[in-house]
């Protein structure tokens, strides 16, 4: 799994690629914790490069939501497609999370 970040005005965009499963999710959680600790308050997680997610990956997503709430921050998601979209839909995450079709839409809501 690969994680890259870039800043757009006051929002940190975190692009994740690869698989989010029981093996890689601990790495995602650790990386995201470190990112949040740097002080930013607005985040967009772009999952366009993620081609597979399991319940472990969803728990990693949930952990990221909790971390952002704990610092009174904002969090949105983009790039949800394919198998990830199917799993988000089945699990109810699609309705629970703030999901946008494009990065532009997500930025507009921040």
């Amino acid at each position, binding site marked *: 799994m690969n994680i890259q970040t870039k800043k757009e005005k006051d929002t940190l965009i975190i692009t994740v690629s690869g698989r989010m499963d029981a093996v890689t999710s601990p790495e995602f959680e650790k990386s995201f914790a470190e990112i949040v600790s740097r002080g930013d308050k607005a985040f967009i997680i772009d999952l366009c490069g993620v081609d*597979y997610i*399991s319940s472990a990956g969803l728990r990693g997503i949930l952990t990221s939501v909790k971390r952002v*709430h704990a610092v009174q921050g904002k969090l949105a998601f983009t790039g949800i497609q394919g198998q990830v979209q199917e799993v988000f839909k089945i699990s*109810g995450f699609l309705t629970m999370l703030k999901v946008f079709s494009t990065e532009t839409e997500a930025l507009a809501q921040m």
Partner: protein
Amino acid sequence: MSAREFTKLTLPNEISYLNIAQSHVRLAAEKFGFQPPELGQIELAVEEAVSNVIKHAYDASEQNSFDIICERVSLGMKIIIKDRGIPFDAGLLPQYDPRQVSTDKMPGLGMFLMKNVMDLVSFVNLGADGKETHLSKYLPQKNIMEQFSGQELALEPPAAAAKILQEKIPYDVRRMRPEEAIEVSRCAYKSHGYTFFDSSIYYPERIVELNKSDELISVVAVTKDNVFMGHTALHYPHAGARISELTFAFVNMEYRGQGCLTRMTDLLFSMEKKYPLSGIYINSVTNHIFTQKVAQKYGVNDCGVYLAASPGTWVFKGISEASPQRLSVLLSFKYLEPAHKLTLYPPAEHRAMVEKLYRNIGASHVYAVPEKSEAALPQETSVLRADVYASENCAEIWVDQFGADIVRQVKIMLYDLCVKQVAAIYLYMDLASPAAHFATPELKKLGFFFSGILPQTNIGDTIVLQYLNNIALDYSKIQALTPMAKEIIAYVQADDPHQTAAGTHVQPRR
């Protein structure tokens, strides 16, 4: 059925081996004909099942292993994950509800995903030998409704308006040929809509595959010019079964009255079979009596009723046939060879009815009372198998082995199924085991009540109990043809712990 084709991999119980497990399964699935997105679904189910084993089957410090078996089956693939660790009670896991997702917790999510992406999931407790999770996935195939227009599949008009041939025509009955499967599916839909419980009949490729493996024996009636007239079949519930279901009987409207069903059924009964049968059974819907008439005609007599076995409303691509309640199914049975005399231990409360049902299907056994109650429940762990049928939203629990913990194990399985909102659960116990005599009244305390008997199953002659989960049922809407069928329904209703004075079943959700 052809020789078993499977792969087997044994892996250490460490999460770092997860990707190897998934790669193995993915490659096997590709070989068996699967493509994306089904490959992704299979990988997901395997991860969830394997993660459960790694997290729960053994102590954290214990180095052990588990097996993954990928088997080609006629309709697709079965994956078996086997471990020899601590019994895992799925029913003790909190249940995940996608409608109530919150950031607080999401327990049971893995199990939920696993069950959602596979066609059939079952769990087998093997006692001291551990346990298995069985995951089945069907190859995607085109449903008949995707192959013909609505007009081409329009349900046939009432008989009075149809052009039924008046003259008798010569025709043949024989085993179905693969190229005829599409006509079989089309005729099934035109005559019955989308009401067959087993939706395989609406997939021509599945019909061909099931016939190739002899899990389904289809016979057809055709004119001398090979024009398709009708179909009926024997469907084996599993490999090596001694009994088979007579099912999928239908004839194109214009050829009704030619005696097709009789000739096709006679052929099915008489033809030499690769897997000899000792009996056949019929599941007749009770929203009409036509199938019950067919059963009676061939001497297949009533022996039970499965209440609320399938949805009252089938909705598929916008086609719906509303029914006020879930459909109940009448069970009937016929021996194809004389029944061997058995010693059976029916529960005291139902002994008279069990004897009556056996007489009705032409068998007479020795009905005994176990000698010592303390010897009736052995000390081994019970082995139970649950098969969940997602499209019907019902489940079967088979008691493969009785143990002293039978009631506890059934309770755990029942809880799991109820929280999953399975509507109807049928429990099968071997009547030749004295334990059935003692377990039944204890299971009644959980809410199970009488359903009937089914002889010659893979676990023996069985008593069937049933449990309805949050189902409203009006008994008066169940149509029964024979006096015995009416008596069975009345008996079941009297045994129903939630029947009301108005003749309905009303039970709060667990």
